[in-house]
């Protein structure tokens, strides 16, 4: 019965379930079965908004250059670049590189 899994089996099950939910929230994968889709979208947007605030705080020069383009550019970037646990660069550095490659803004 599912109620009495040994700990390692419980870890494997929880791991698979959590990976699915995070994949939906940050990795553009669909909402896992049984979840309220609207709530998954609201949570995903809240996570991107928090990320945007943190990067903006770390890179005020970028905020000044991108001005009104910040919101849609950051949103595009965040949707395509989930924060990886093994990331070597900071999110702000990655965003700066992405903006440089993506467009017209020439940034240092």
């Amino acid at each position: 019965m599912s109620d009495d899994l040994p700990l390692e089996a419980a870890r494997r099950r929880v791991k698979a379930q959590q990976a699915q939910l995070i994949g939906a929230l940050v990795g553009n994968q669909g909402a896992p079965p049984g979840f309220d889709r609207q709530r998954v979208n609201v949570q995903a947007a809240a996570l991107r908004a928090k990320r945007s605030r943190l990067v903006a705080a770390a890179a005020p020069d970028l905020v000044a250059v991108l001005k009104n383009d910040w919101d849609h550019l950051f949103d595009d970037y965040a949707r395509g670049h989930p924060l990886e646990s093994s990331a070597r660069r900071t999110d702000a550095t990655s965003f700066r590189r992405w903006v440089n490659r993506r467009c017209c803004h020439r940034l240092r």
Partner: protein
Amino acid sequence: VAAAQGAVVAAVVVAEVAVVVDSVGRLGVGLAWRRELELSVARVPGIEFVEVLAESVNPRRLPPSLRALRARAVPVVPHGVGLSLGGADRPDPGRLKHLARLARELDAPLVSEHLAFVRGGGFEAGHLLPVARTRPALDVVCANIEETQAALPVPLAIENVAALLDWPEPEMSETEFLARIAERTGVLLLVDVANLHANALNFGGDACEALEALPMDRIAYVHVAGGVDRAGFYHDTHAHQVPPAVFGLLNHLCSCGAPAGVLLEYDRRFPTDAHLVSELDAIRAAMQLAHV
């Protein structure tokens, strides 16, 4: 006879409260220390303890303002956000070592973390996500908490989080989940009344009832924070003023038991000292209800 039994029950409850308070000591009225609030923490009178985001402080190079607080014997509680106690994996040894070292350097009365997971599938969520309230998840959380307790030189308290989404087919309520974890592991509780308020609004249910179902004798301290309604969801922002309903919950909690401390949190849109004073005064008034 009924009155006598009532008195016995009351005495037992008081004794249990005292046990928890003893293991942590009195904390009083607190404010979350943030770099942006360094000056406010120094200026605003009556701040009896602070909490510091564990991941933002290097134990080998404590910020001078924290050292100054310690020199005045103001308790500083390391508050972790990155351990992912509710995650599938065992707690990261590096993070545990950091928390333990910080607790020692600060001579902290306890360490707190969240009943949440923050990473999975190779990704970082960047925020605290709710844990499925199932038996397997309960077993994993309890194992992670026990491993953390063994690594820390002081007691651990876990905090209930605010959620925007919930897992399908929960096997128990949030408060039952917390109570079972506390019973199995002996972990203390950091009750965030604003998060109870948020979840009651976002999922229905009565925050007061949820509060009453918590094991009062396990409560180490309490969080209070502000939030905002946005498109039908309550967001626990730590950036807006504390709603009256959250103070109502705090008053209710304090009239049920006596938490060792109650701490106000702001993470951005930092308010003026005058505003902090008014919210800290409301907290102080609530804490006095416990002694009436």
